[in-house]
């Protein structure tokens, strides 16, 4: 079982769209895929029209058997462990455990054998939960909107990895919401060209992706031949080769 975390310190960078579409594409390749929505905002759960079980909570997620709270999506081979609003207390819950930065890793072990891939949709912050995520993930996928602020966030993350002794080679960056017509975007892209952490493929800013919140389906399911889908397919091909 491999774990891919869609992570960003910043919010609104297309993290959830990336998570849902890449996970859906993986499931189309006959891989058993589980998405875990760690963001209390529950955007992935919203996109996939799934509400959590009433008895589900951050305490249950970190403390016991979560498999009974998993729900099947509308797509074959793709399941979701939906987010609960109590996930905002993750750090408090994690703090109760002895090896607090390894807790998530321990919990995900229960899915070994059942799933080939686990996608983590992460909340936008850098906390104890984030450390757990970095420890468990085989790949940390970072969607980056090519602006100076995102550049700053990326540099912060590199520094954090260094400080915590986390392997930086698991960090992979792709441009998200990229707009060719914007000079600022082009300048930022140019700046990082050839950087070893950056993937070759990117996700452009497209209305059809933004509309996912309206039709509540992966764009790769709704319109497989659309421009957005093609970009996600190319990105997935590149990520898949890294697994």
């Amino acid at each position, binding site marked *: 079982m491999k774990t891919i975390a869609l992570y960003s310190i910043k919010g609104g960078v297309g993290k959830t769209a990336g998570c849902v579409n890449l996970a859906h594409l993986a499931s189309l390749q006959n891989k058993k895929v589980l998405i875990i929505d760690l963001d209390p905002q529950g955007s992935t759960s919203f996109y996939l029209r799934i509400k959590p079980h009433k008895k589900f909570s951050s305490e249950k997620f970190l403390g016991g058997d979560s498999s009974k*709270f998993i729900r099947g999506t509308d797509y074959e081979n793709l*399941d979701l462990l939906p987010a609960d609003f109590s996930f905002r207390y993750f750090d408090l819950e994690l703090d109760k455990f002895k090896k607090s930065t390894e807790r998530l890793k321990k919990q995900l072990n229960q899915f070994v054998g059942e799933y080939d891939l686990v996608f983590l949709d992460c909340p936008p912050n850098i906390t104890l939960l984030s450390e757990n995520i970095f420890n468990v993930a085989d790949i940390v996928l970072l969607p980056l909107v090519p602006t100076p602020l995102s550049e700053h966030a990326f540099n912060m993350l590199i520094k954090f990895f260094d400080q915590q002794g986390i392997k930086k080679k698991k960090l992979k960056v792709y441009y998200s919401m990229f707009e060719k017509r914007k000079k600022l975007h082009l300048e930022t892209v140019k700046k990082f060209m050839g950087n070893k952490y950056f993937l070759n493929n990117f996700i452009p800013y497209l209305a059809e992706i933004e509309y996912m919140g309206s039709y509540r389906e992966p764009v790769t399911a709704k319109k497989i031949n659309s421009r957005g889908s093609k970009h996600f397919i190319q990105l997935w091909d590149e990520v898949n080769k890294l697994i």
Partner: protein
Amino acid sequence: MYKTKYILNSSSKVTKIVKTLKKNFAITEEKQFKLKYFLYDSFDFLLLKNGLAVFQNSKELNLVNLQSDENIASFSNQEKTDIIQITSILDTEFRRILTEFVAPRVLIKKINVEEIRKLYNIVNKDEKTVLRLCVSEFLANGFEGKYIKLIPIRGYNSVFKKASQFVEQFEENLYFNTIAHTVLYAANINPDDYSSKFFVNFEGNESIHYALTKILDQSFKIIRKNYLGVIDDIDIEFLHQFRVNLRRSRSALSLLPEVYDEKFVKQFGNSLKKIADKTSRLRDLDVFIFDKDKLFNLIPNELAEGLEPLVGYFENERVDEFSKLHKYLSSSKYKQEFTKWEKTLIKNGKKIARGSRADENVKEYASEILLYEFNRIIKLGKMVKPKSNDEKFHDVRKECKKLRYLLEFFITLFEPTQMKIFIFSLKKLQDVLGVFNDVSVQRENLYNLLNSNIKIVKENRKLSAAIGGAISTLQNIQIEKRNQFFESFDNFSNKKNIKLAKELFGEN
């Protein structure tokens, strides 16, 4: 997690069920598609009985776990032949899984299905699919059928339960857990129908004449079941079972004396022997060819390759031998002969000329003969010494086999738990003697081969060396089994077992 259900029903009822579900749930129609596939299994549905199925679609063979409904392995194959030799499946993983659990030699096309499937989604107020519904109209081997399948979605079990309740309101539904069982039922194929298992039930108040006729009738039914498999050369198991039941019939005639008229027994026995003799060589060749790995494993690797030409030689001989048997079994002479005996047993059983003990009670007769056979084994077994020649061991083996047949015939007449213990002790002795015999026969066959005028044996030194190596290993196994005999016989002939035999068969 609830399991998928297949509900087979008449067309009109399926329409009503769908209407009811549409009234009570929000249903969206997703898609409709046609599909065509074949179901393969071994001659006796070994796969199905082990929770597996092999389906062939237009592109590939799929091995499916029927419990989880998951595809375990696939093998690219576009040939839709009636028979698939397992050795022709080149995908190692597919073959490994198939042979690890079941080990069939061939897969036989059991059923041809053409289906039109309509898929519906049952959705909640967020328009999330919470249950899938599949409605299928199909033709299975030409038989029309229609089924409804409820496919639960993880985490939404309550909807599945509720929908199931609506469906269950309709009476006379038939529920199946797998598509394989559903289409087989529709095509009137019962996987349990093929069984070479011999079983006859007696109440204890019948006459021995009636009992013998019933035993022979049951054996003949099994011979009949295996007939087509033999002449189509589908699997060597058919011929094996065909022969086992010929032998069982002959044994019944000889082991139960004075039940039928002596002249009738002689005629019937000779007729069965004639058929059995025609099949003997083919069975020997089957054992050699299909169990050749066992023989190869007896010899060091450097000698084993020497046996290869012999396999080819026997394979060619098998073609000729099968052709001879096919001709014989397809002939009107054979069919007339077989039908004559079959008719005698089924229609005129009561009229079979009676022997002097024909009217005796089955239990009394059986008890006497079983005890006699048991005592005979004890007597002959005690005569076997470590230095006795092979014949002495064979004599005990033959008597054990006779006792085993008798126990098979009359098992229902005696106390089941005690019978189980008694049969178990006999079986352990037979296991040792069985290997002793197989090895002995194999040794003799190889020795005869070595001294034969067969060109490839005479001219091929490597082959002669390999045969010599095999004979030597077989001799060692035989010595080992000789030693094991005494321990097994001691267990069989101990006081406890003698007491058990007397309790069972009447001498208190």
